């Protein structure tokens, strides 16, 4: 068996690292606020005009877009190895890779549409 050279592999590891950093830095605060604190009434949810202005801000959109794309590829990359090696599905690795990265691509397209194109 010869060593398969895939020029995309370093890029995937780069996205894995960058996504891991961004997810670690930003997601806990976002999820604590919007997923737990506001629904439980620990803090009053922000008013619509304010949040609308925040979401429309170009810098917020850019940061959210980078976070979404990189965190999705981070998750896809990590899950790919976990499913393949954890469940011992080496024979299905092609299908697993396609599902993981395909889902990350679809999510990135949705993020791009929502954050860069729409509104």
């Amino acid at each position, binding site marked *: *068996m010869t*060593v*398969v050279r895939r020029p995309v592999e370093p890029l995937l590891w780069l996205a894995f690292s960058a*996504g*891991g*950093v961004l*997810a*670690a*830095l*930003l*997601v*806990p*605060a*976002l*999820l*604590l*606020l*919007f*997923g*737990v604190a*506001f*629904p*439980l009434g620990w*803090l009053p*949810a*922000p008013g*619509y005009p*304010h*949040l*609308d202005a*925040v*979401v429309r801000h170009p810098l*917020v959109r850019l940061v*959210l877009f980078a*976070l*979404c794309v990189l*965190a*999705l590829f*981070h*998750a*896809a*990359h*990590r*899950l790919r*190895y*976990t499913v393949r090696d*954890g*469940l*011992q599905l080496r024979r299905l690795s092609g299908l697993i890779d396609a599902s993981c990265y395909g*889902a990350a691509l679809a*999510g990135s397209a*949705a*993020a791009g549409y*929502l*954050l860069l194109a*729409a*509104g």
Partner: protein
Amino acid sequence: MTGYTGLYQRLYRPRVPILWWVRRRSYLLFVLRELSSVFVAWSVVYTLLLVHAVTAGERSYRGFLAWSARPQVLAVNVVALLFVLFHAVTWFALASRAVVVRVRGRRVPGVWIVAANYALWAVASAIVAWVVLR
């Protein structure tokens, strides 16, 4: 990963039970750490749903808030938060081994790198809270 010949694989293939990772605490933590990726992905989806709702108008934003307060959604988010925190802590711990910083030829101790990561985390979280709650 590569480098094994087909013959080698045919000759020696140890069977590993599928639940090998529940036997030891360190293995279990490793697999849980890897599974945090599922909840990172969920958090991205949740954030995009929020952005979509806000972009669509005030009514759908109210609808999103009501949906997020449903017990099932809340339960998922509480679990997701725990996993995402686990991801952050393990990621920063890893950084001290992965990142080599040298100052005047001497390697900066790992503790400093972890501390710098936590400081950055605090700043990033404060900025998020300030932008959202202002």
